């Protein structure tokens, strides 16, 4: 029996919802009519480049910012004007925001102290929460003596020990070195799952989002471009912009023919099977197919495959080479290949692999 944060029955805290949230700073609209919902036990990632409004959205969810319009609700109750200290959310800050003058366990116990839990009980709970993140012996250490990964886990324990109604995480992995990041992704997902409350986290790194989130909301210039599962965003992007950000696809002009699309490069025509986003129109004018490095094959020499081009750049990406091939007409694609004997300046030919290509509107 531990006193650590426990999973609770689904639905107790209810879904966290943002409805038509807009926030302006002067002339600048940081968040523009953003809506989404995170169910209990669900992990939603807000993904976007810097300046896309993802952190402001998170701060509005936490109560540090008040939206100019729109509502924040939890289980249907309106929290828009409730200050952060009365929302009962757990937040993990980008640089963790651990109190430097307190020991590890006092940091974790702080939220319980604020709730009037007596000293003995709060230390017992804090230690249990620390044990839950694998830091049972770090309680009386000073914050400065912790590594980045340990600080991250203390920050998480501090957010979890108050049995939050929702969890908010601002770039929780961005301060970790790459190796640690991989293991923390798994740990984080496991721990967030266990808590069973809505969890919203912000990241600029789509790999973090793919690894952790159930669903992803992709933001650009304060708007949600698309919100869906990682697979949906990858295979059925709603727009050129989504396709360009997720999976680093290159878009090539195409003619929509329903189940297929016709692509012409260098005078050579090919018909490709396509997928499209759920709410996309049955016929897209000005259509593009999304070509990702792993959906094209390449051969040395000009004659093997239909489309001819020239290698302008080559880089090793661990296990495969990624060639940048200029096909003419302003189209340049990246191609993943096991072939290692092709060099910059070589003539090559490429072909689409036999699979469905995402089709988007331009």
């Amino acid at each position: 029996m531990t006193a650590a944060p426990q999973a609770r029955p689904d639905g107790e805290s209810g879904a966290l919802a943002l409805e038509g949230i807009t926030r302006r700073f002067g002339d600048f609209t940081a968040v523009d009519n953003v809506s989404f919902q995170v169910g209990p036990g669900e992990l939603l990632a807000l993904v976007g480049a810097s300046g896309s409004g993802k952190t402001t959205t998170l701060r509005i969810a936490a109560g540090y910012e008040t939206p100019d319009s729109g509502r924040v609700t939890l289980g249907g109750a309106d929290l828009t004007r409730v200050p952060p200290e009365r929302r009962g959310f757990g937040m993990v800050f980008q640089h963790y925001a651990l109190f430097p003058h307190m020991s590890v366990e006092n940091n974790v116990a702080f939220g319980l102290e604020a709730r009037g839990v007596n000293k003995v009980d709060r230390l017992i709970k804090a230690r249990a929460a620390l044990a839950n993140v694998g830091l049972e012996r770090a309680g009386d250490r000073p914050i400065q003596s912790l590594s980045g990964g340990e600080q991250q886990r203390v920050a998480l324990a501090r957010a979890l020990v108050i049995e939050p109604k929702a969890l908010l995480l601002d770039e929780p992995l961005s301060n970790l070195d790459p190796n640690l990041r991989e293991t923390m992704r798994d740990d984080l997902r496991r721990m967030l799952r266990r808590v069973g409350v809505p969890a919203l986290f912000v990241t600029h790194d789509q790999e973090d989002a793919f690894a952790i989130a159930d669903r992803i909301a992709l933001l650009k210039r304060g708007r949600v471009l698309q919100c869906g599962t990682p697979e949906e965003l990858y295979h059925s992007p709603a727009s050129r912009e989504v396709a360009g950000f997720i999976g680093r696809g290159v878009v090539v002009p195409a003619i929509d023919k329903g189940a297929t699309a016709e692509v012409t490069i260098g005078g050579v025509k090919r018909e490709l099977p396509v997928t499209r986003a759920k709410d996309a129109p049955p016929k897209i004018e000005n259509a593009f197919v999304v070509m990702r490095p792993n959906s094209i094959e390449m051969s040395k020499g000009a004659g093997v495959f239909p489309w001819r081009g020239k290698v302008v750049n080559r880089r090793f990406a661990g296990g495969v080479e990624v060639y940048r091939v200029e096909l003419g007409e302003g189209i340049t694609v990246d191609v993943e290949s096991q072939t290692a004997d092709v060099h910059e300046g070589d003539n090559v030919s490429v072909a689409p692999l036999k699979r469905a290509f995402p089709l988007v509107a331009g």
Partner: protein
Amino acid sequence: MIALLVWAVIYPNAAVVAGSFENGLGHWREFWASPADHEALITSLVISVASVFASLAIGVPLAFLLGRFEFPGRRLLRAVATLPAALPPLVGVIAFLFLYGESGLVTRAIQRAFGMSEAPWQLRGVGAIVFVHAYTMYVYVFLFVSAGLERFDSSLDEAASGLGANTWQRLRRVTIPLLMPAVAGSALLVFMNALGSFSAPYVFGGGLRVLSTQILNSKTNGAMGLAYVETTVLALSAVAGLALFRWLDRKRKYTLASKGGRARRAIRSRKVQVLTTVGAAIIVIALVLPHLMVILVSFARDGSWTTQVLPPEYTFENYRRLFSEAELWRPITNSVSMALIATGANLVVCFLAAYLIVFRKFGGRRFLELLVALPWAIPATAIALGLAATFNRNDPLTGRVLLVGTFWILPLAYFIRDTPLVSSAVESSLRQMDASLEDAARGLGASWLMTMRRVIIPAARPGLVAGGLLAAVAAVGEFVASVVLYTHANRPISMEILAQLRALAFGTAAAYSVLLILLVLLMTLAARSFEERLA
């Protein structure tokens, strides 16, 4: 908060400016027509500029010597180099009087040694004032330039020599330009201090007039209108000086960000080494002598030291009287309690101001920043006269409360003088704090009060301790504002020192001075142990 500071900082000064126009331009005409005031203005400026150059001439070479070279005696010299700053302003002046005055130790010794019939010099006039200023104020230059040298990245020097620059070229093109901000910053500090300086001109001035003493003269003579004009001119000179420095420094776009650090070079030439060590020894003696002299004189029997080189009779009587006679003990309790009250108020008000400035975005933020910094730009005499002009009668409707002649006027003056110091110390502590800590505390459910108590105040603590210490030290020895505003009942130690000096009770004056130095020492130790216990 803003209202309180406007009432304490802006209102009195505005009252002074308004008072200078109470006869239309009458008082200003009087000022321009008065040769004495012309002389005072020019002398004030000459003394300030000369003090800047004298402080630079001592501080810069000393910083280079201690920062760049290794020689026997370096550590001792480094240890005593900042000692003059520990002397309360009036005490430094008195020490110089005992040493270099007409009947001072050094003066008499030289007179005897060379068999002269008269003292070889007189400690009065512009030269004497600049001499004392250089001794007490070079410390600013020394500290700023030393800090600049410490931050100076030796790779810059190495890069320059790699590009073929010789020693002189490196100094001229790299080192000196990069140290200019430190030099300019400290020069400004010296200028402001010298312009507002009161004790040295007051004690050594002789017939010499400077603005700060002229203000007190006019006030004593009841010519308040003229005093207001003189005060306005003094304050304007200070602000003009500040603006001039800002303008000269405007082009600087770079900062020395590197950790730097470089090894000190040992002096190789045997001759230069001996010379340096002898020179260092002389400087050490010159720096320590004033302190030693005050201690020595504090044991001299009052009235016994007349024409001798050293005081002839020694006694504990001076100290015994301080502790046993109520009238003599009074200034000590006055100074301590007034310093504690002023510092306490500084801590509360300046903490809140710094908190608002650093963490809150609101319309009046810039104005609040200006308010807490303003007293720094206004000489103490001007601040004191402003208070005298504003708090001299009871008229609560116009914000006037009768404080002049009461105990409370001096703590208020100390509070105003020390506000910039404490605010900037707390501000710099708070700026080092990660702003998301406050968000984190609130997100964890902490009330405003708990966030303050558990997060913000601990973060501000180093600034509160350091600022509080500096404020308490400045307040306990304060002289310049006190001389304008004190009454017999609340006279501080500095006023009593002056009174004893006038009564030629050198021993008693020196005993007070030693006590003041001990108080400063005690406060410093208390602050340090407090900080260590908490850290």
